[in-house]
């Protein structure tokens, strides 16, 4: 077993790197490539078809599909004799105090997505070794993308995988941990974000896993990369991000934009407009995408309408909680060339203010005047 974790910064070409890793493997190696989102699976399949089309043993699947196919479905009778799993309930939740099979399966024997990790983990032991023996015979290697999206019982399962004969290759960035597989579980909360890195560092010390860093971004301008690094404090112990985006467009870097100038800015640069949630940013009539949803995408320029916490961070240097920090990190690192943050004041951050050029203002007034006269006539 060779277990590797690569902590990759946003824009470092993670997906491409994974596809290349798979292509570099022996042709007959049996590999499960696991990702969390459907969009990601589609991207990976396309990439793999392009570079590793001759590797017949590579399967791309979601984490839930993996747990369902190799853990829950084959072995559920070990915990609940005579029961079968007849489907998957993505949104269902068991009754808070549900016991036994009702904890995991709904009335139509569909397994609750939010309890699948726990069921899978308990089955490893309940099956008296059959489960892991089967898995070890089926796969030589398991590749997990977006490892930061693990939660709760997933960590226990990963622990077993790391100790198995299967090689585990993991890629992720804990600063981008914005998905939660089980929103209600309190188990392993401490392993979220920075705790997760700690979890891996403990295992690296015993030789169970090798950690490496991929700190070069091909996407974000150096100014954006440097700003991104400030969102999480030095206590995370992560290396500095290096940028290889040397393209200059005349408006490159991170800027503060006064609320009064938002309209002009959007008109001039057509950035992707980002907000925290559908309840935020109502002051401006913009075509928004939420922070979390923007994950995995990239854009020339972005404009961020910050939360109160982000404003406090910029104005007074108050550190963000890990969850909001991750969302803000994701939002900022979507851009190739420029990030604009809408604030009225931000004394502590040292970022430059963007001002509309006088010509722009004149243009704006002219346009207003013209439409005004048009209306009057």
């Amino acid at each position: 077993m060779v277990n590797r974790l690569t902590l990759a910064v946003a824009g470092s070409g993670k997906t491409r790197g994974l596809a290349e890793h798979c292509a570099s493997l022996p042709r007959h190696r049996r590999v499960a490539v696991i990702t969390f989102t459907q969009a990601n699976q589609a991207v990976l399949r396309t990439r793999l078809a392009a570079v590793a089309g001759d590797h017949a043993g590579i399967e791309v699947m979601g984490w839930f599909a993996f747990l369902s196919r190799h853990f829950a479905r084959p072995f559920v009778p070990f915990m609940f004799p005579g029961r079968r799993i007849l489907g998957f309930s993505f949104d269902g939740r068991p009754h808070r105090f549900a016991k036994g099979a009702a904890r995991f399966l709904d009335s139509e024997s569909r397994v609750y997505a939010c309890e699948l990790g726990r069921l899978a983990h308990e089955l490893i032991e309940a099956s008296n070794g059959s489960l892991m023996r089967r898995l070890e015979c089926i796969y030589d290697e398991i590749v997990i993308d977006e490892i930061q999206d693990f939660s709760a019982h997933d960590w226990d399962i990963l622990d077993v995988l790391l100790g198995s004969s299967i090689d585990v290759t993991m890629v992720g960035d804990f600063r981008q941990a914005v998905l939660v597989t089980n929103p209600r579980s309190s188990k392993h909360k401490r392993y979220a974000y920075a705790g997760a890195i700690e979890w891996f560092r403990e295992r690296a010390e015993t030789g169970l896993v090798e950690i490496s860093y991929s700190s070069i971004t091909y996407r974000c301008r150096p100014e954006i990369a440097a700003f991104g690094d400030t969102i999480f404090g030095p206590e995370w112990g992560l290396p500095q991000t290096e940028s290889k985006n040397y393209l200059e467009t005349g408006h490159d870097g991170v800027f503060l934009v006064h609320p009064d100038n938002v309209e002009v800015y959007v008109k001039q640069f057509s950035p992707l407009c980002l907000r925290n949630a559908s309840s935020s940013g109502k002051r401006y009539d913009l075509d928004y995408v939420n922070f979390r949803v923007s994950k995995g995408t990239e854009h020339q320029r972005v404009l961020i309408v910050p939360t109160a916490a982000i404003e406090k961070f910029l104005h007074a240097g108050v550190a963000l909680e890990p969850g909001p920090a991750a969302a803000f990190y994701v939002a900022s690192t979507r851009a190739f060339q420029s990030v604009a943050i809408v604030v009225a004041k931000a004394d502590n951050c040292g970022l430059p203010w963007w001002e509309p050029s006088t010509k722009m203002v004149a243009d704006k007034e002219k346009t207003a005047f013209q439409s005004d006269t048009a209306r009057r006539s």
Partner: protein
Amino acid sequence: MIKKVKITGYRIFESFEFQPHENLNLIVGANESGKSTLLEAIALALTGRINGRRASEELNPYWFNTEVVDDFVESRKAGENVAPPEIRIELFFEDREELQHLCGAVNSEVPTLACPGTSLRIVPNPEYADDFERWMESPSDILPVEYYMEDWRDFADNRLTQRPRQLITAFIDSRTVRSAHGVDYHLRNILSDNLDPSERAAVSLAYRQVKVSLSDGPLREINDRIGVGQASLHDKPISLAMDQSPRTSWETAITPHVDRVPFSMSGQGQQAAIKISLAMDRHSDRAQFVMVEEPENHLSHTSLAILISRMQDLAGEQQQLFITTHSSFVLNRLGLSSLLLVGPSGAPRIPELRDDTVRYFQKLPGYDTLRLALADKVVLVEGPSDEIIFERVFVDIYGRRPIELGIDVISMGGLSAARALELCASLGKRVAVVRDNDGIEADKLREPIDDFLEAGERELFFGEIEHGNTLEPQLVHFDGEDKFRRMLGISARANLANWMERGKTEAALRIASSDETLNAPDYLRAAAEFIHG
């Protein structure tokens, strides 16, 4: 390798379970006892197919066990809300690495067991639940299979759509009428499994090229001729070319030849032999299952002997054979230890024999072990005269011949009663061993077979020494010499001892057909009463 077979509700098998031998299984049973059905069931769960077609296409009401269906219909008529009958065939495989993707705990074992396996179920189709309930308002014993569906899965609960790669199965049925093409579905499968993927691809490609060359060569001139002046429906040119569609792939054109005679032209016995050789001769080490129906068909005794020894040579460690047979010769030669007796009771019986007994019968392949195996009850006697007299005694008491009551009287003809008794004992048969005392004390007579005797099940019968050493003096003792001479039809002057010595069987026949009442020796009467039960 299949470790266990479980069949529920399929044809004759209401509930059936057995653990096959690792390499060789000789399935033996009376007619209609389910030998072929057993092979069919195993093939169904292995390949999802029966006679080369999908189970769902072949499904018919007679697949369901009649007793199960009757019970169901009765219960429903009585107002009980019991579930409709289902068919389930489960195969449990050895826990091998390459079969692990078939591994799981979704099977009927209690307590829960994880192992590789496949299960084929015929279950009510939920989409037709309402129609089925409507049918139930006036049910008949012919189930509406239209409302059923096939559900073929591995033990990991994955649906199977085609035979898993590792489960290579060959089905050799020498009873099938030869097909028009000579090469039927089973043989095509055997042929194509026999070749490596690369060999297969090479043959396929070469065959295509041959077809192309024919189109480019002789056919071109013809096409040049018919291409002009002949108008098709839309005035497009007509040409002749080799058919390249899958209908005409190499598998349909390539056929085995024996001594340059095509397969389809050779005798049926030869065909069976070829199929067996092709199916068993594989170089790969994958799990394989070979099923042979009645190899003795269409074969002369010598050909059968040759075929059997070839099968023994080819059988590898990775192969599991299932053979049905009606032939004691096949049974003895391949080894009685592989015998699997399928009976009406459902649970098959497997004898546990000592190795030297298996070897004993292998050296005597002509010995009719099948009679021993198939009879309900057995009477072992020493020779033909004992057989004839015993029958007469039995008929005198019960008015019917023993065979009519499932009792087979078998004359040992000098072979070891102990070996025959061992086989019967291991199959749990009721046996009466009848023998002459030959002037030997009871204890000494009993000694060589004592291990296999069991009061009430298998007993030894012989006359008392003072009544005579063999059958004839015993008869004289119980009937008196005068009556005896009358039965034999010999004069008072003839020497009785000499006469009987010279013509034992003739004497027995005369006694058996005599109109005189026979006063049977006590031990024969006791044996008849014991075996009649």
